């Protein structure tokens, strides 16, 4: 018996007993997932999958990575993405595919011919199961990296300190990705709050090396280009000495030991600006 007749046998069996197999498959998977997915939804999902597999086999293919299985693959990718988002484990997700083997087993092990056909079908499902777990992992990675991004956003709050003054308390290390987020948020907040002064506080940054300094300078330059005055505060004595020994120059960027000094200075300037505005009107 060759592959072609194996496929024919499989297609016939799967077509004839579609309702029975599908019901059993849905029940088996449903038990696995212990009611965390509605039977109706599961039935629809698995029904689509069943028909896509059947169609590809009717076209004469058993190659899970071949063109005939394109529809099946996209259904499986969708299924595993949903499962990953809903918090199902990889095992639970892949089991949804493998369960079809168990369902078919009793009907396809009667004689040598059908046993051979069953083995080929099992191999096909193994391939599809692998695809499913790959798609699941990809989705999980996407979820993790988007969470990392959200954390990054959370850990770089830009706050309005006073009318016209925004503050950025930096905590932790300042790498390139973080600098980009800080810079964008700072510039946006300057615009949103109509502020003219920004204070970047580095009390919570444990190490200021040339990379951090370069990133700070970049941020200050960007804020200046928006017409804002920028101060760096929270430069502790040990950091000041280290910066000097490294040879870093902050140029004409005002610095302060504490955030409150920086704020006092900024408020003075905001008041002066306002006076100027009033005089300009007179």
């Amino acid at each position: 018996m060759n592959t072609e007749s194996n496929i024919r046998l499989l297609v016939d069996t799967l077509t004839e007993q579609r309702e029975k197999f599908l019901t059993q498959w849905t029940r088996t998977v449903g038990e696995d997932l212990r009611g965390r997915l509605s039977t109706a939804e599961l039935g629809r999902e698995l029904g689509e999958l069943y028909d896509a597999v059947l169609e590809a086999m009717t076209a004469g293919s058993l190659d899970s990575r071949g063109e005939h299985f394109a529809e099946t693959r996209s259904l499986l990718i969708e299924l595993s993405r949903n499962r990953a988002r809903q918090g199902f484990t990889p095992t639970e997700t892949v089991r949804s595919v493998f369960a079809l083997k168990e369902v078919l087993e009793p009907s396809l092990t009667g004689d040598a011919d059908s046993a051979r056909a069953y083995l080929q079908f099992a191999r096909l499902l193994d391939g599809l199961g692998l695809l499913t777990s790959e798609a699941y992992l990809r989705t999980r990675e996407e979820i993790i990296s988007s969470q990392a991004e959200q954390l990054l956003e959370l850990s770089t709050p830009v706050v309005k300190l006073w009318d016209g003054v925004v503050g950025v308390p930096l905590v932790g290390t300042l790498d390139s990705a973080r600098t980009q987020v800080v810079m964008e948020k700072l510039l946006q907040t300057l615009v949103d709050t109509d502020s003219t002064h920004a204070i970047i506080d580095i009390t919570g940054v444990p190490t200021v090396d040339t990379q951090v300094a370069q990133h700070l300078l970049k941020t200050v330059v960007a804020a200046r280009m928006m017409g804002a005055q920028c101060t760096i505060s929270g430069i502790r004595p040990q950091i000041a000495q280290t910066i000097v020994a490294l040879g870093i120059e902050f140029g004409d960027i005002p610095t302060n030991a504490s955030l409150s000094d920086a704020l006092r200075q900024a408020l003075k300037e905001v008041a002066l600006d306002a006076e100027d505005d009033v005089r300009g009107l007179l």
Partner: protein
Amino acid sequence: MKDYAAECASLETVPVSTSGDVVSMRQMVRILAQRGGLSLVHQTKLVTAASELGRNMLVYGGGGSVRAASVTDAGRPGVFVEFRDKGPGIADLDLALTDGWTSGNGMGLGLSGARRLVDEFDIESGPSGTTVRIVKWAK
């Protein structure tokens, strides 16, 4: 510079192949500095030097490994750190140690600044890699 690595009973070794590794290497150095009783200023200087050398190793040397240990000299405690990479090496050491010189787009202050931040500084570089050794003493 004395062969501190040979004298040490236990050296902590960490690989540096990502910027996350630089952060954890820095933490290891900070802990050794605190244990050695270095003042806050000295700790900060040592950790910053380690940060510069670790990042150079990563950026220009393609990563490498860092060994660190507590050392003593005539009863005075200190911290020894060695940065070793198998990168292309530094063709002109004098130039690389010049303030403001960079082959990339840095500030060109890492190497020269690190030398100023520590008490002992030793660099060997050739086509098969670069090794920098530093010591900071608790004064």
